[in-house]
């Protein structure tokens, strides 16, 4: 199992996320109705803040992640994921994996596993 590394991101909590526009080369994970993670960080968040002056915008490295090939990811999910992962690609999903809150970004040939960085070591130990 490769090591998980911190994922520098921009994290935004706002009521104006729906219409926001982000650069093509960013991964945008909508983790809640009012929250998203943009990996790697972006400098310009005006498409949110212009509509929501109270938006919380922070640089965030509190998550750690690793990309795995589709087969390796599938094997881990078979072992450690009790919920049904959608077959759609690309797709974002989140839930417990090996008992740890995990976010998944699923692409056709690879999957990004993202966990809170304080649990990264235990996650690595559990899915070995």
């Amino acid at each position, binding site marked *: 199992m490769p090591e998980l590394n911190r994922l520098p991101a921009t994290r935004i909590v706002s009521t104006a996320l729906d219409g926001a526009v982000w650069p093509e080369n960013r991964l945008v994970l909508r983790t809640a109705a009012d929250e998203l993670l943009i990996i790697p960080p972006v400098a310009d968040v005006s498409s949110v803040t212009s509509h929501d002056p109270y938006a919380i915008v922070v640089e*965030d490295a509190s998550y750690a992640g690793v990309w795995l090939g589709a087969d390796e990811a599938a094997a881990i999910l078979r*072992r450690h994921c009790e919920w049904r992962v959608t077959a759609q690609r690309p797709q974002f999903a989140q839930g417990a994996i090996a008992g740890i809150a995990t976010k998944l970004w699923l692409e056709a040939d690879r999957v990004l596993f993202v966990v809170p*960085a304080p649990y990264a070591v235990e996650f690595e130990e559990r899915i070995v």
Partner: protein
Amino acid sequence: MRVIVDQKPIPFAPGDSLLVAMLRAGEHPTEGGCLCLGGDCPNCLATVDGISYVRTCQVAAKPGMVVERHPADGYPLLPDDSRHRAEVHAHNHHCDVVVIGQGESGRAALAEAEAAGKQAIGLDVANGQEAIGIYSGPLVVARTAAGMLHIHAAEVVVATGAAEIQPVVPGSELAGLFTSRAAEQLTAAGLDLGRVVAVGTPPAGIECELASGDLLRFEGEGGRVTAVITQSADGSENRYPCQTAVVGLGLYPRDALTRMGHQLPVRAVGDATREADLPTCPGEGIICPCSGVSVADLERIWEQGFQEMELVKRATLAGTGTCQGGVCTPYLRSFLLAKGKTLQPAFTARPVNRQLTLGEIAAGAHHHPTARTALDGEHRRLGAKMERSGGWWRPWNYGDVWAEYWAVREAVSIMDVSTLGKMIVSGPDVLELLERLYPTKVSTIKNGRSRYVLLLDERGYVFDDGMICKDSDTQYTLTFTSGGSSHAEMWVRDWAESWGLDVRILLQTQRLGAINVTGPLANELLARAGLDNPPPYLGHIEATVAGVPCRIFRLSFTGELSYELHHPVEQSVTLWRGLLELGQELGIRPHGLETLLKLRLEKGHIIVGQDTDMDSTPRRLHHEWAIKLDKEFFIGRQAVLRTNKIPLDKQLVGLEMVGQPAGYAPLEGGVIWHQGNYAGIVTSATYSPALGKTVLLGWLYLQNGELPTEVEIEGKTARRVEVPFYDKEASRARA
């Protein structure tokens, strides 16, 4: 090819189960009892390769397998700890339909599901897939050679067929008894059963004598059956000498899994839905071989009033053993029917229906993970003893707790406090939200200032504490205890949503590291780190420290001059190492939780969860000063007003031991006595080198309306004193 049975090698033929191999060699896995070869009885259990309660009829014999019989008069020994066992893995499978059993009806159900375009899977014992339980979900758990299979299916079809009724008469514990199907299997495997007498429906294809009349008993010699005794209609007995007795007493549905699936999408097909044949109500004999329940026991509990299936089960434990009612259920039903009750359904079944190893039970289960701060590696590198606290791994000490203590009191020290709950709340309604949540007047906190606050629940009990820090008119930073921050987050979010307030909330505990710089030389250290103008007491500023951008909060839990440096978590190591480097000449050393607990106790600061209880009101905690009852509303206000009218019964107080040697501290949690009566408990205790005495916090009950002034703890005298114990004027923290 041989297997080892009680240290004796015995040969086996290809395709033999362990049981067939043993029978072929003239051995029986237990003392006796009617064998079914179908997994439905408790009569073939043995210890196989160190694992007890294995059904030997369900295990294929392999060369070198070691079989040990269970003791006849007790339980098998627990496995030897030194024996290495591979971890049992769980595998998850998600599908629309799972069909348990792949006989004729099971195959049909599987084909039907597949034809309907559903993702379906079939399980069968014959393929080494043994379903052992159905849980909510539904989740079907099966044991396989590759580990435990957890099948999450929208629908479960049980096609497990029917089992054969076992005989319950005197002598049914003898060896040499088989059900019809078992006899047929053994004959097909080439075993010679000798002279066979059949009772009831005879086995197919086996030459045997059919016993007429009702089965009365089996007779035997040396533990083996020698004759079948029946009774004719006229009352006369018939004796049928034999070497093997075969019983065909009828069938009952193998529906334990169905009965586990109450209120779940679980249905049975085929023989698993059949009506159970009812055997004749026995006059005597063991009805439940697993729990040793006899017909006489049933008569006794019937007289005592236990006259329903579920009550009989609870009164006798029949049906709770290794076969989960497989043998006894038909007889219990016929017993109650014969007593005049209506025919009753079988008991509710509960997982698991097979004996599992601890490894099989634990497969796929995880305990709650313990978080690590970004400085975890630094602590371990410095030789810290790590402890779990509040859901985190934290340094307990770095090897010399008293050196750490004096570094704080006389020089400077740092502590990793990244675990503190930290939240931003922003929005036009933020002040409204906080005024409703907190019992303090939030509106009086100025920009750049902080205040210590309690969080009360609706009953007016304290469930967390922390700080409110005002960032701007529309944004505040809140802090919570390390262990309480998840609950506090839920609390803030739930109320904000319930009240429909326009706020945004971000718990940033894991985004921000936090290092507490504390001690009389803290200012000197920060100056060396580039901060010449630290914030005033209870103020906060943003500045760079040792090259790391920080939000600096001045507050004190240790009783000394202290600053909390909140910073981006990815720069924790840089800041930690920088401070240690810069503080070398100042005598810096890090301190752990053990030291902090002593320091804060000297100051009389409470720890919510350790010094508080489920019913700790601000008044009982002596924290009325933190509650502003002249506010119109805050959560818990009504309850505080109400409970304040009730006479005080107990209070958290400060105590010091009288005349005890240096280093002594009573056990936390110990009892406080007053004149021989229980008077309370110790919540925190430490020896204080700075004060030269032992100080404590504890709950003390009022006696005749007064708090006792002198009490006994561990047989020694303690005196009630005012807190704080150390630096009562707080001149050091505010220096």
